[in-house]
């Protein structure tokens, strides 16, 4: 079973040279730590920054420079600042190539639910609905099962949706999966030591297994 860091590390392998990327809060944020340094990529923060740098030194902290998670950050040479309408123009216009975000549920059609649990206090969708409705490539980072053991990969989502037919790939603590055009989770890779049987038993939606399923590699 992968740690959060390992999920992030595996997702980092999906990143391509010259991509503009939006990373959600949680595991997706960790992906930044594992992007190979020979790849030139730019991270977008939807509150209005292209080119997110590392966290500042104590002496550099600037309240006028935060990311979408409201954390203090820095800029990089070549960064640009813009307003919120421009930021979502970039996102909706398809200029951001890759969105990586967390989820509470994903359906075998690629629907995603990640913003609201009935009965719990609703904090809001923030930019998630715009991101999932617009990005060309969407990767979900999440645990395969909820804390009480229920599969988060479902035939249809039970929670209120964030977007429909948008997720392309899912990386969990157990597996890498892709959404089939006709619906279903195509099992692509197993976490080290995890059997296909275990993944099968923990995937409530239709699981598609074509031939031998390789283990993930982390070199």
């Amino acid at each position, binding site marked *: 079973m992968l740690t959060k860091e390992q999920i992030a590390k595996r997702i980092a392998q999906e990143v391509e040279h010259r991509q503009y990327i939006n990373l959600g809060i949680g595991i997706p944020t960790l992906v930044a730590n594992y992007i190979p340094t020979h790849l030139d990529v730019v991270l977008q923060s939807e*509150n209005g920054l292209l080119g997110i740098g590392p966290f500042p030194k104590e002496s550099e902290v600037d309240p006028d420079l935060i*990311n979408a998670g409201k954390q*203090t950050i820095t800029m990089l040479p070549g960064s640009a600042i813009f307003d919120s309408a421009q930021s*979502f123009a970039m996102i909706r216009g398809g200029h951001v190539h890759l969105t990586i975000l967390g989820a509470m549920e994903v359906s075998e059609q690629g629907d995603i639910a990640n913003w609201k649990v009935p009965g719990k*206090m609703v904090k809001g969708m923030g930019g998630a609905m715009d991101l999932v409705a617009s990005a060309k490539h969407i990767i979900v980072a999440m645990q395969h099962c909820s804390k009480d053991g229920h599969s988060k990969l479902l035939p249809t989502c039970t929670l209120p949706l964030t977007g429909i037919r948008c997720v392309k790939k899912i990386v969990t603590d157990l597996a890498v999966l892709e959404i089939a055009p006709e619906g279903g989770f195509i099992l692509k890779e197993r976490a080290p030591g995890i059997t296909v049987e275990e993944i099968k038993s923990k995937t409530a939606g239709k699981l598609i297994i074509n031939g031998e399923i390789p283990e993930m590699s982390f070199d």
Partner: protein
Amino acid sequence: MINKTVENAAEAVKDIQDGATLMMGGFGLSGIPENCITALLQKGVRDLTIVSNNAGVDDFGIGLFLQKRMVKKMISSYVGENDEFERQLLSGELEVELLPQGTLAERIRAGGAGIPAFFTPAGVGTEVAVGKEVREFNGKLYLMELALEADFALVKAWKGDTAGNLIFKGTARNFNPIMATAGKITIAEVEELVPAGSLDPNQIHTPGIYVQRIFQGNNYEKRIEQRTVTR
């Protein structure tokens, strides 16, 4: 050039009445109009509808309005960083309309730009789509969203001139420039107010035409929500 200067925050907000709709700039606590917030707290206006991406924290920003029960309705994309908000929401004292952040931004921009409605893909197939027109363009589904305007827009800039031209700093820019366009009356508070002609005309973020009142604020606290540092 038209001089938009007013004396201070109290004068700037003096005609904001009970029941007014206010747009308030900021993302989290960054770039919020701190001086106008203080002036409105002192004035004690009620039943406000507030358009703001977030709702502050318990003891800062819009959270202070909630403490004083000044807010009837919030229109936001992400709220609930504060307990009083949750209490008022669950008790039914407070109404909340949640919108996708990009839809919120674009509705505000449309309000300022004389565009009464537009189509966006955000929210298709979700509860955000309920009651909205869905339409297909080039094989993809979109929702029709309407423009948002406000009686007053309260924005915070880094520098401004007496003609109302504004320059923002860092990600404190966020919703401020678009809200400045969508207020029937836009009030800008700035860290530094300079004479018209002191700013480079090429580097103005908000042209003065959108700003009706401007003043130099003071005692900016600029509270940080998540102080993350590299050691």
